[in-house]
């Protein structure tokens, strides 16, 4: 990859991380939707682009359904939170937050010279991990990036994605987890994707 591709990859990671934040009008606006549409176009994901514009495009009542869906999927829902966005929920025996895998993830950050700052705490939150990948991409540390994906991100992300795809009611998050999946999948030298599921 070229230098500029690495920087672009950082943008993509950050964009994906941003997209998984709670839907608020202060970032989820015209600019955002035109960016994601543009992005899906470039990828050639026409069906996804269409699904998004159908559910969000013209109608004015799109924000609240998205907020409810975000709460339902990632915060609280009946009968249970569908997909808590934390690695250790999928990796620890007892499905708790801040399990051993979260501690290992934090250790990885530190060994690479990044310390979680201030009051951010749970180190294996999806957005946290994507932001970290953005930093590695920015520094063009491809080896670390691949290693982090392999050992910390991919072990849980597919399970998280599966739940969102199975239970999600809004196309937005289904598209999002597929995008994240696409950009974090391991690739072999010949350009084929490895089969990990």
């Amino acid at each position, binding site marked *: *990859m070229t230098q500029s591709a690495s920087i672009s*990859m950082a943008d*993509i990671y950050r964009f994906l991380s941003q997209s998984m934040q709670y839907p608020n009008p202060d970032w989820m606006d015209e600019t955002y939707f035109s960016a994601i549409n543009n992005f899906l176009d470039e990828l*050639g994901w026409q069906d996804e682009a269409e699904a998004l514009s159908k559910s969000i495009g013209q109608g004015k009542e799109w924000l609240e359904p998205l907020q*409810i869906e975000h709460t339902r999927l990632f915060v609280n829902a009946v009968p249970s939170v569908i997909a808590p966005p934390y690695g250790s929920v999928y990796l620890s025996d007892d499905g708790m937050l801040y399990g051993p895998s979260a501690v290992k993830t934090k250790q990885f950050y530190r060994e690479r*010279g*990044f310390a979680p700052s201030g009051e*951010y705490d749970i180190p294996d939150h999806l957005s946290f991990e994507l932001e970290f990948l953005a930093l590695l991409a920015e520094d063009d540390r491809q080896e670390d990036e691949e290693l982090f994906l392999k050992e910390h991100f991919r072990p849980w992300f597919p399970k998280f994605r599966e739940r969102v795809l199975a239970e999600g009611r809004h196309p937005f998050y289904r598209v999002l987890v597929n995008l994240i999946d696409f950009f974090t999948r391991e690739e072999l030298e010949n350009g084929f994707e490895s089969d990990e599921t």
Partner: protein
Amino acid sequence: MALNLTRRKFLQTASLAAASAAMSGCFAKKADASAPFVRKPFTAPGSFAGTTTAVGGVCEMCFWRCQLVGKVRDGQLVKLEGNPKSIDNGQSICARGNAGVKLLYDPDRLKFPMKNVGKRGAPEWKRISWEEALDECASKLKAVVDKYGPQGIAIFPHGSSAKYPMTFFEHVVGTPNNSEASFFQCRGIRDTAYVATLDVAPGENVDMPNAKAIFLVGCHFGENVHVSHLKRYLKGLENGAKLIVVDPRFSASAAKADIWVKIKPGTDTAFLLAIMNYLVKEGKYDKKYVEEHGQGFDQFTKAIAHATPEWAAKICDIPAKQIKEVADMLAANAPSVSIHPGRHVSWHGNDFQRERSLACLTGLLGAIGVKGGFVAGKGPKSGKAGWPKPMAEHAEKYALHKLAKVHPYSPPGTPTDLIRNAAVTGKPYPIKGFVAWGQNPIQTIPDQALTIKMLQQMDFVLVCDVMPTDITMYADILLPESSYLERYDHIQKGTQWNFADPHQQFITARMPLVSPTAADHERKDSVWIVNELAKRMGYGEHIKVQSGEDMTDKILAGAEPPLSIEQLRKEDGIHVQPGVDPYGKALDVYFFSEDIAAAGFPGAPTYIPVPEPPKGFARLVYGRAPVHTFNRTMNNAWLHNEMPTNPVWLNDESAKKMGLKDGDSVMLVNQDGVKSRTSTVVKVTPGIRKDTVYMAHGYGTMNPLMTVGAGAGVDDQSLISKSAVDPETGAHGMRNNFVKFIKDGKELSIPA
């Protein structure tokens, strides 16, 4: 999706630059917000490198409030331990105390303010901002006050963090309708009965380590775990105290007893009257103490003269000989006997009289102010901080029990049943705003259907809690609170646990062991939340403390010598100073109370029979489990693992007749046809009476958001559909409900 395009190929496409530029526009404006990472060279840690000890923890996995330290690594709490400086629990904490770590990191914890966009009872949650949540709560509560008066709001608080909101609604907004579960469904009866008899609320102040005999009615220590209290009890037994346990069940305490009195539930007062009558008749009481400190003794002895051991034996279904044996054992060891006042005492609706009897028995034995007797330690002084009381008079005027002239011995607040009835009937005035703070009234109050009816008729329901307990399902707005490990809010005071040791006092304040803020949630503490509500409701001028920290500092400043959070930290979290000798203080004993008689109740302790089980049913009795605190801990993964369900105890001979084996799965149905929502297993044992079944309280959570605890075991409260109300206090009695079993869809009668 285009099949052939891989990430790498995409990154090489020429059009990427444009797409990427569009994206960076989306988060550029967020870039200045605090970044999640800072660059920091790595230094390899040793095994304990970076582990710090945070002091000032005060446990609230139950309400005994042991003193803690937290072991913290990289901002993460890794372990809780007793504070080595503690003269109360010392280095010991119980299973629940240890499991506080799991509460802190429970993924089901409430994280953000939420609005119910579904229905009460069938909620659909939408995360909202604090701004929106507070605005909505304030405007809805204010609307209730404007339309119905302050008394139109009811508050159901529990725990340290609920004190600040409780006093706000009671004294500043001005509603009397405050129902504390710790009073009306627990110990309030004990407190007012002892005040009426000895002029002091008793706490659990019996000097068990130095007693020659310990007398427990229903207390099941070992299953009920409060660390320093257990230390006192066990030290007493270690020192050779005789133990008498009165319980229909072979409890953990009964297993250690010299005499186990397998009493018929509801008849304890008859038993106590017979003991006292026997002691009087035999002249085996403390004549000197009674002469010097007894009030109305002659009227008392006359009133209980009918209560012979033979009379009580029939009522209590125990041998008359055993009653005499117990009385003789108490007399032989008097005055060094610990007549335990109990803690959860809201049993049958005749409980004020039982608690009066216990206080009288204590006086009769002269077991007050002496080694082994009823002795309160003297803790240090502290200051006060919180709300002023501009509307206290208004609240007093609208108190339902005062308007109706009932329950003159009510503990502070208003009897729950009166609040609920007023809300449901609109009489004598409507109650249309509901606030639950740390309490789960679905599981604390009998008759769930009526509680739900009360909730459904409210104009507005606000719930603030740490976990999504059952009551949260009925909230319109649900607020997430910091846990006891993340906030300032409680001053704990006391003495060394054993009065035989040099006299000392301690004072400590709850301080956060880990940061209350983090990126994955927006929890706040109650002082902040209530202050924000107060400002929006127009009560901002009354705010006296700016934060939990400020309140704590102000209370500490009133200590002698004056203390501060900073000073406490310097002293490893606990200030210890020389104490005073607690012995030697005698108390007057109102054996017969003119006041109680004037209020229209029996002036001398009196046995009032309770309803009997209908044929085929057994009485449902509940109690504590050592690894749980009611429903509060049900979602804790460690504790759930220790005791995932609450087996229902059934007499072995009954089980045989019913064709049930130990471990069989059953559901329960009560006398009103109310069925348990879930099932549990049968524990077949000779250690329970045939007319009684027993289970631990707090199981069977209905809220599916409690993913560990939901549906585990049976909710005993769901089967307590018939409330009894103690006439003197207005507190609930919850052991007058009767159950049958259901196995494979078939109802099974329980043979008498």
